[in-house]
């Protein structure tokens, strides 16, 4: 008897708890709002032309998304090649660092975007397809998924994605943002060296290009450093990197010019003075080399010992 009365009560309580939980969840999911400035400058609709669609096979949305973005940018690589390069059989999926690494292997620079809806739409409007990581399910039973955002409509408040087995799938801003927020709004674009995302931060761009150079070579990276110093003309480190890339491709004159710009922007950049001195020395300009190396040797830091040794070598007449 007792049990019979209790059961509906217990069920009612459970239902209440579930309902409350769902209400709380709905409270969290709101339609994303754009910053006023973005809303005014962005076109009402945008669409990235010519993004081929590759339907994912089981678990392989990572390689599929990469193939779409790379093919769009003129890299002729089939999905079959990408699968062994990025898919992890034991995890039945692909992880973020390797998504970026694979882009580098194919000669494009991956730039992770900041976590804002504005940036996502801005990149689409700039003609760049964006790979996004979504958790389509709830945090407790995650269903991680890579998709490629290729278009939006501000009036209809809808995003268009190549996703899974569905080309040009339309998702409302609200539903998309709820699933995207669960990956901390992780997204990236894969660009040719020489192109930069419009809102990218200086450090983020610098690290992305340097990581690319480590995998590819100076020749391939040179246009990226040129574009970087154009975007960030006050970055001493940027000119320093440009100088190194020019030097590695045999352009000594250009390297010297870039190292001079580096120290003009940051007089305390010892490593730039050091490379300037070494390059001048190789050029036969002993006086200029001595000046630069003396400056480098006077600056405390990691490269001081290096600079002192180089100065000694110069004095001993090597």
């Amino acid at each position, binding site marked *: 008897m007792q049990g019979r009365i209790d059961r509906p009560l217990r069920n009612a309580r459970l239902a209440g708890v579930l309902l409350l939980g769902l209400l709380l969840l*709905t409270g969290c999911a709101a339609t994303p709002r754009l910053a006023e400035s973005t809303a005014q400058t962005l076109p009402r609709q945008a669409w990235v032309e010519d993004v081929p669609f590759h339907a994912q096979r089981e678990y392989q949305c990572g390689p599929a998304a990469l193939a779409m973005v790379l093919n769009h940018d003129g890299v002729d690589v089939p999905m079959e090649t990408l699968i062994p*390069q990025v898919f992890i059989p034991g995890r039945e999926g*692909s*992880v973020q660092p*390797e998504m970026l690494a694979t882009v580098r292997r194919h000669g494009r620079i991956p730039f992770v975007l900041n976590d804002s809806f504005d940036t996502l739409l801005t990149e689409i409007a700039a003609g760049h397809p964006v790979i996004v990581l979504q958790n389509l399910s*709830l945090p407790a039973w995650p269903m991680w*998924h890579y998709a490629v955002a290729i278009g939006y409509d501000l009036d209809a408040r809808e995003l268009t994605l190549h996703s899974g087995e569905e080309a040009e799938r339309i998702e409302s801003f609200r539903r998309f943002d709820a699933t995207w927020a669960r990956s901390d709004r992780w997204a990236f674009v894969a660009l040719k060296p020489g192109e930069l995302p419009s809102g990218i931060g200086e450090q983020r761009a*610098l690290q992305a290009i340097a990581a690319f150079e480590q995998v590819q070579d100076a020749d391939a990276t040179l246009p990226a450093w040129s574009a970087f110093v154009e975007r960030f003309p006050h970055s001493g480190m940027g000119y320093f990197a440009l100088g190194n890339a020019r030097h590695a491709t045999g352009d000594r004159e250009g390297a010297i010019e870039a190292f001079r710009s580096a120290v003009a922007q940051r007089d305390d950049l010892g490593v730039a003075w*050091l490379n300037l001195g*070494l390059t001048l020395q190789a050029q036969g300009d002993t006086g200029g080399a001595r000046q630069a190396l003396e400056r480098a040797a006077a600056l405390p830091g990691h490269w001081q010992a290096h600079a002192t040794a180089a100065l000694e070598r110069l004095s001993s007449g090597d």
Partner: protein
Amino acid sequence: MKTLRRFLSPLLILALVLGSVSVSAAPLPTSELISTQAALSAERADADRERINEILSRAEVQEQLIAQGVDLAEVDARVAALSDEEAHQMAEQLEQLPAGAGVVGALLVVFIVLLVTDILGLTNVFPFTR
């Protein structure tokens, strides 16, 4: 992984120490420029210890990927394409990193909850709810 670390750490420390000694003791006649990557990592504190960690990380990532069934012929190139920071992240938390797959393995209860959240527009598991 632990044994690998114990075995490799002293070797690497020795190699790096010897490496820097030989540079200062017998400088090469042709002076090499400092690379951008070296300059960037030196800007961070504890550059040397970090370098040791990064080399160890790559060895660990390699082991883990092989254990996870990645093709042996691909492992080297895959690890080489990671930035130092990414290699470190992979070594520390490969198990926790979200692996994008687009498939959910679920029970009936979960199915019902997800169905409701799908209808509410919070999730996007079932194509037919839109």
